């Protein structure tokens, strides 16, 4: 067991998989330049030194090519792990992800496989509208993609290894404020949870949610940074006698509906917390499922806590109102226990 940050855990996963499987290689902007950053958030630091720049490939600023090259290499037997500096730039490779990576297997009736991983950092960190989005929901709507979003070092490592071994294209979302990146790349307001990571090899299977805190009164579903807000909220609520069950989905596609359903059958109340804009976030889908499948067990309206429907602002004071706070989660849960 060693305690480490998420950035370290991700780096370890990459290192172990690259040692294990010669098909695994990395590509992206500024990931392997000697003397460089190791990617925007230090995750790939040191890997070019160990594996060489053939397997840790710096690309031009060409997101469509990053995705396209990953797809092509994956088709032909490699296991690329690509890196997009900020998840906002996924939109520059959207055709490759939505029309190609997700659909080639289907169009070819299974003849093609696209075992690639696209790593993408999400979250608002006072950089304005083009460097702050959490675009998971754009991809949960795309059959053929898997979508992963780990919130702890343990999960980050275990899920990244699972993603690399998966035979499908996986969008792997990481949160800027959870990395624990150090030195020049550290971020103000970072949570940077450190976590225990076993020394022996392990995998966290894609598609399994986990209960981060057990409770009987209300179910809160939250991923990435929002998980920590939800857990804080649960502490506050506990003091008021409300026992929240906090579920971290860890994977958004495939989504572990059963786990949430199981919890809601017990609690009768559901609150979903996500960092991105409310309308048509992935939380909408969770709410829609439960409004169908858990209908008879629901004792209260399903609530969502999310960013309002505005682009991410730059000013920290505005950003604090934009990103859902612990207080908003608390208030929303409370509202389910009064008259409504």
């Amino acid at each position, binding site marked *: 067991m060693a305690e480490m940050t998420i950035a370290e855990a991700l780096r370890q996963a990459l290192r172990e998989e690259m040692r294990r499987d010669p098909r695994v290689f990395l590509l992206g902007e500024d990931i392997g330049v000697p003397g460089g950053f190791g990617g925007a958030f230090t995750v790939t630091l040191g890997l070019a030194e160990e594996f060489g720049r053939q397997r840790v490939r710096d690309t031009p600023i060409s997101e469509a090519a990053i995705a*396209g*090259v990953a797809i092509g290499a994956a088709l032909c037997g*490699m296991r690329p792990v690509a890196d997009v500096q900020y998840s906002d730039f996924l939109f520059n490779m959207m055709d490759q992800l939505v029309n*190609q990576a997700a659909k080639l297997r289907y169009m070819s*009736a299974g*003849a093609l496989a696209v075992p690639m991983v696209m790593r993408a950092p999400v979250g608002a960190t006072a950089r304005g509208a083009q460097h702050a989005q959490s675009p998971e929901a754009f991809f949960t709507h795309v059959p053929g993609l898997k979508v992963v979003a780990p919130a702890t070092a343990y999960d980050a490592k275990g899920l990244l290894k699972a993603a690399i071994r998966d035979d499908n294209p996986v969008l792997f979302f990481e949160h800027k404020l959870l990395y624990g990146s150090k030195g020049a790349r550290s971020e103000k307001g970072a949570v940077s949870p450190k976590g225990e990571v076993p020394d022996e090899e392990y995998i966290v299977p894609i598609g399994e949610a986990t209960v981060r805190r057990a409770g009987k009164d209300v179910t809160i579903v939250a991923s990435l940074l929002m998980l920590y807000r939800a857990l804080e909220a649960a502490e506050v609520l506990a003091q008021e006698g409300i026992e929240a069950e906090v579920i971290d989905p860890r994977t958004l596609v495939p989504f572990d509906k059963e786990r949430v359903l199981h919890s809601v059958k017990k609690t009768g109340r559901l609150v979903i917390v996500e960092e991105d804009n409310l309308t048509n976030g992935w939380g909408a889908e969770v709410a829609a499922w439960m409004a169908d499948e858990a209908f008879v067990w629901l004792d209260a309206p399903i609530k969502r806590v999310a960013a309002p429907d505005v682009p991410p602002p730059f000013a920290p004071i505005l950003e604090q109102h934009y990103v859902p706070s612990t207080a908003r989660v608390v208030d929303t849960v409370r509202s389910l226990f009064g008259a409504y």
Partner: protein
Amino acid sequence: MDQQHTIPPLKKEALLDLYRRMRLARRFEETVNDLYLQGRIPSTLHLAIGQEATAAGALQCLRPGDTVFSTHRPHAHALAHGVSPHAMMAELMAKSTGTCKGKGGSMHIGDFARGFVPAIAIVGGNVPIAAGAALAATLQGSDAVTLCFFGDGAANEGAWHEGVNIAAIWRLPVVFVCENNLYAASTPFQEAFSIAHVADRAVAYGIPGVVVDGNDVLAVHAATSAAVARARSGEGPTLLECLTYRLCGHSRSDPRTYRTQQEEKEWQERDPLPNFVAWLTAGGHFTPEALQAVDQQIEAILADAIAFAEASPSPEPMSLYEDVYA
């Protein structure tokens, strides 16, 4: 423009093989066009009638293990590469025995086991993917080459630019073959480019750019051979532009009123098939009978392909849910 390497003259069997590939493509497309007009094929068709010399000339240069990327107009490429006309016919007819079990259709024909990637119909979208396929070969220590077709119109897509550049800087073993048929759907080349040739863009990536008569199958073969040799020996990509013309409409019943009959007539005279037949027979390489024997084989294949396709079952409705994830 790069000087073309000299290549050994083609053997007789290779010449006949070129003819066979072209003729098969031509007759397949004429046939499916009839079937389409009779309502026996659904959806739409993008035919490559008139462009067969490029398909055949380029693809004869490859060897097993190489990889081909195609476009929304893939029939001639696929047939020239040896994809089964039976499975193609079945795919066009939306049958479970089709190359994509009826899930792909005309625009996604392919046979990956033969190295022909089921075609990609997003214009330009195949280019960075082809670069990735070429990268795989390099990383695997193989000397396999990737050949990627695209139209003139594709060269104005952002993905095209990104893909060609990354192939160039990494010296990837890929040959980019532009079929410049003077139009992107209805849009004339000169409205979309302020340069004379797509191949002029090679300068932007520091790679060779070559222009050939795409209706001259031997010229295409020679230029592609050189580019493939270059790629295989690790010298990197080539941008090869084949000047050609589609003698048919862009898709299904396109009345082609955006171009003049005069222009069509001029290109009709440059139809690669009769011209190659004339060359083959005039040069004394082959008797007309030898070619007719090929023609007859092809007619038999097509009749058989139709029968196969029509007799094949439609996909099971439940197959809708298969092949989404591995």
